[in-house]
């Protein structure tokens, strides 16, 4: 069973069309949930860390929220430059504090 599952696998949006990406996890003892953006051929770029249920963080058009079993990355009025793969990673006691990544959501925003 996948420990970190991201959905959808791919998402196509029109510029300005808001949507949400999902990251669900099955571990207990969560220590942190991390969102990253990855452009083709590059390393992941850190976006947010969330530590506890109910926490929210915002950066420009992105807002990340966390519940006990999932996190959402909300994208408001996206622009073409928001096109990238968005990765979710979980750090938990049962992983020995290592980061476990989901497969990512490929976002394409068309103008």
């Amino acid at each position: 069973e996948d420990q970190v599952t991201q959905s959808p696998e791919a998402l196509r949006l029109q510029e300005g069309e808001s949507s949400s990406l999902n990251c669900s996890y099955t571990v207990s003892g969560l220590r942190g949930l991390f969102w990253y953006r990855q452009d083709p051929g590059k390393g992941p770029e850190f976006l947010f860390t969330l530590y506890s249920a109910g926490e929210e963080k915002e950066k420009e058009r992105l807002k990340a929220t966390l519940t006990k079993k999932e996190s959402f990355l909300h994208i408001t009025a996206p622009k073409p430059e928001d096109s990238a793969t968005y990765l979710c990673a979980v750090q938990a006691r049962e992983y020995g504090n290592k980061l476990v990544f989901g497969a990512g959501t490929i976002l394409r925003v068309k103008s």
Partner: protein
Amino acid sequence: EADIYQTPRYLVIGTGKKITLECSQTMGHDKMYWYQQDPGMELHLIHYSYGVNSTEKGDLSSESTVSRIRTEHFPLTLESARPSHTSQYLCASTALGTGGAVNTEAFFGQGTRLTVV
């Protein structure tokens, strides 16, 4: 901006060759990691280190080896490259979070795309 560097960015090499992928960070982070990522797939941890002279194997079995002689340097070596080693290799580092047990965010290098022919 993260100060973590990987070289080379791209490498095409013949089967059986020995190669070393370099990773250096200037942030003084104790923890460093190597991930392997195939196109469209998730990152898989292959090695990590919590400090000098400390190295551990990750969750994905790998024929590579690593060393950590200096805090800032975490090279990965393949003694005999094979086509199955073709992948992207990503290096990352983190500082210790507050309380020591929780990581802060990981900073990634740009990656090395390895092709073994």
